[in-house]
């Protein structure tokens, strides 16, 4: 067990000021940008984490393979890799596979193997299953299987890079300055109730959904049991995992818009509902009745992302901080304003959203091929 004070505080005076750091940056015009600014911003909030977890999600990452599911998989053991690859070949067409490029750094100790696979669907899918359903089921197979393989991300044209270390150390290790995307989220972790391991770092992901989180989900047990009824298996030993599966269930499977989903996760208080107009009351009551078990209780600030959207949301009484910044097409979400200002001093506007009120960044239009290949050429999956 690492001594947290040694990791966190080189001054040996017992001061611990961590609280997790969350950061998100999105170009709503869909233009891809390098991760350098995002890395700089999350590094500015270094002291909020304690070196026991860091991670990034990047969207618009693999335009050359945009139609394929990009699986990033962590193997705790070499023999797990062989077994899991056999599983992948049995259930998919593996178009391309490679180790995720890394550079050795002193800070990252005993890293597990992380590989990526670009997967095409088999010729015929089992009946009644959409391609996305098929993917979710196979991810659950791998995560709950007997070997120690864990899927970090499984969406198209996006990926999650994460592990144990400070976020800037993970960024260096995974060479993230070499990638480009139109939406980035970044997390610095201070584990509170759960173990610090590579799978427990944020973001948590299923398909192209990712979640980063500051706080605690006190309702984890209830949320998890509800999600298990829909086939989601929690295997990452961290409360945040339920948020990723909850948004996949609500938005993809049940087709609810984001604004409604936010009302499920951070439902208005009952007395607040009573003051709303009758039609809205009816809706809000129905949501609490049907999805009461997906209410997220406890202090949280989360950044949820998937293709085309980035969402910031806090608990109803904002027990964790979230600041928003805007500059033209750029939307920033951050635990602290200073991290945004550092990379964008001339913001048009900054504000603090109300607890439970989602802040939503949406792509103005789907990026065209010109948009996604504009700028530097980055060969998919390969660092150049």
């Amino acid at each position, binding site marked *: 067990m690492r001594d947290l004070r040694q990791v966190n505080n080189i001054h040996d005076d017992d001061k611990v*000021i961590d609280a997790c750091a969350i950061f998100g940056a999105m170009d709503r015009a869909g233009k891809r940008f390098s991760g350098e600014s995002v890395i700089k911003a999350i590094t500015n909030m270094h002291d909020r984490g304690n070196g026991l977890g860091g991670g990034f999600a990047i969207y618009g990452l693999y335009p050359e393979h945009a139609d394929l599911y990009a699986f990033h998989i962590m193997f705790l053991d070499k023999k797990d890799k062989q077994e899991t690859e056999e599983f992948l070949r049995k259930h998919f067409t593996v178009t391309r596979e490679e180790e995720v490029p890394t550079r050795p750094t002193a800070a990252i100790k005993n890293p597990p193997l992380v590989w990526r696979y670009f997967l095409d669907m088999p010729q015929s899918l089992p009946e009644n299953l959409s391609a996305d359903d098929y993917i979710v089921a196979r991810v659950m197979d791998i995560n709950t299987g007997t070997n120690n393989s864990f899927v970090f991300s499984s969406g198209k044209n996006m990926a999650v890079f994460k592990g144990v270390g400070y976020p800037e150390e993970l960024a260096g290790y995974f060479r993230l300055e070499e990638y480009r995307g139109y939406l980035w989220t970044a997390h610095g972790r201070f584990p509170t109730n759960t173990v610090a391991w590579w799978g427990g770092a944020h973001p948590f992901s299923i398909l192209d959904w990712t979640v980063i989180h500051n706080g605690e989900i006190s309702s984890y047990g209830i949320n998890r049991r509800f999600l298990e009824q829909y086939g989601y298996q929690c295997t990452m030993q961290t409360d945040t995992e339920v948020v990723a599966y909850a948004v996949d269930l609500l938005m993809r499977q049940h087709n609810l818009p984001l604004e409604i989903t936010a009302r499920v996760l951070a439902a208005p208080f009952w007395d607040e509902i009573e003051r709303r107009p009758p039609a809205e009351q009816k809706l809000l009551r129905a949501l609490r009745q049907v999805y009461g078990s997906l209410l997220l209780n406890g202090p949280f600030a989360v950044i949820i992302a998937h293709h085309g959207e980035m969402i910031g949301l806090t608990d109803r009484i*904002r027990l964790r901080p979230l600041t928003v910044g805007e500059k033209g097409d750029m939307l920033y979400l951050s635990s*602290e304003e*200073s991290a945004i*200002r*550092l990379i964008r001093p001339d913001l048009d506007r*900054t504000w*603090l959203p*109300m607890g439970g009120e989602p802040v939503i960044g949406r792509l103005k239009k789907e990026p065209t091929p010109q948009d996604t290949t504009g700028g530097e050429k980055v060969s998919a999956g390969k660092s150049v």
Partner: protein
Amino acid sequence: MTDIRDSVVNIDASGVYYRELNNRLRDVVANGSRKIELRNVYGQRYIGTDLNKPVEIEIFGTPGNDLGAFMNGPRIIVHGNAQDGCGNTMNEGEIIVHGHAGDTVGLSARGGRIFIREDVGYRAGIHMKEYRDKMPVVVIGGTAQDFFGEYMAGGTLVLLGLNLGKGKNHKARFIGTGMHGGVIYIRGNVEEYQLGKEVGVADLEENDRDALRRYVSEFAGYFDLDADNILSHKFMKLFPRWLRPYGRLYAY
């Protein structure tokens, strides 16, 4: 040679870790400097702590959390926004923010004054307290988010609502929840349901008006506003209905 007391010490805070920055402030104040300008401040915490002298620190940028924590004497002027915990447990001095501030402004403050030109986040004035001549005052030009004056035990909170549209109410809910000391003055309207169970509402009396005039005049002076115009609107006074709201909760 100019007296060091008259000269301004300029510090470029780019990339300077907060401990190093606060150490440098201790050094220059110990050397007799009384006016300091900090540029390129991006998130360094606790600026103004542990100086114990009536120095003036002007900050250009975004100071980090707990600005002026435990501060005892300095005057801090921020050209930008303040983050969370501004004035945490401060004892004496002033913080003047030409922008907005994050959550828990003035938390547990026991003295000194804080002036925020625009809005504040959640829980401004949480657990402020007072004792004899120590009486913290927080004046906010804009509006506040929920739990304004939560568990307030002393001191004065003034909410001016200067940026509220015509006929618009403050939106904060749970105002004064758990309040058991001090006073809150609000310019602009709030509905009954927005108030905590522990607060009462009253009209201002003569001594309230005197105090309010002093605080608003000082506020208006810092931000170049017309105090008379601000004071000409209706204010409401919130006070704690009980000094020990939970006194009988565990013993009866």
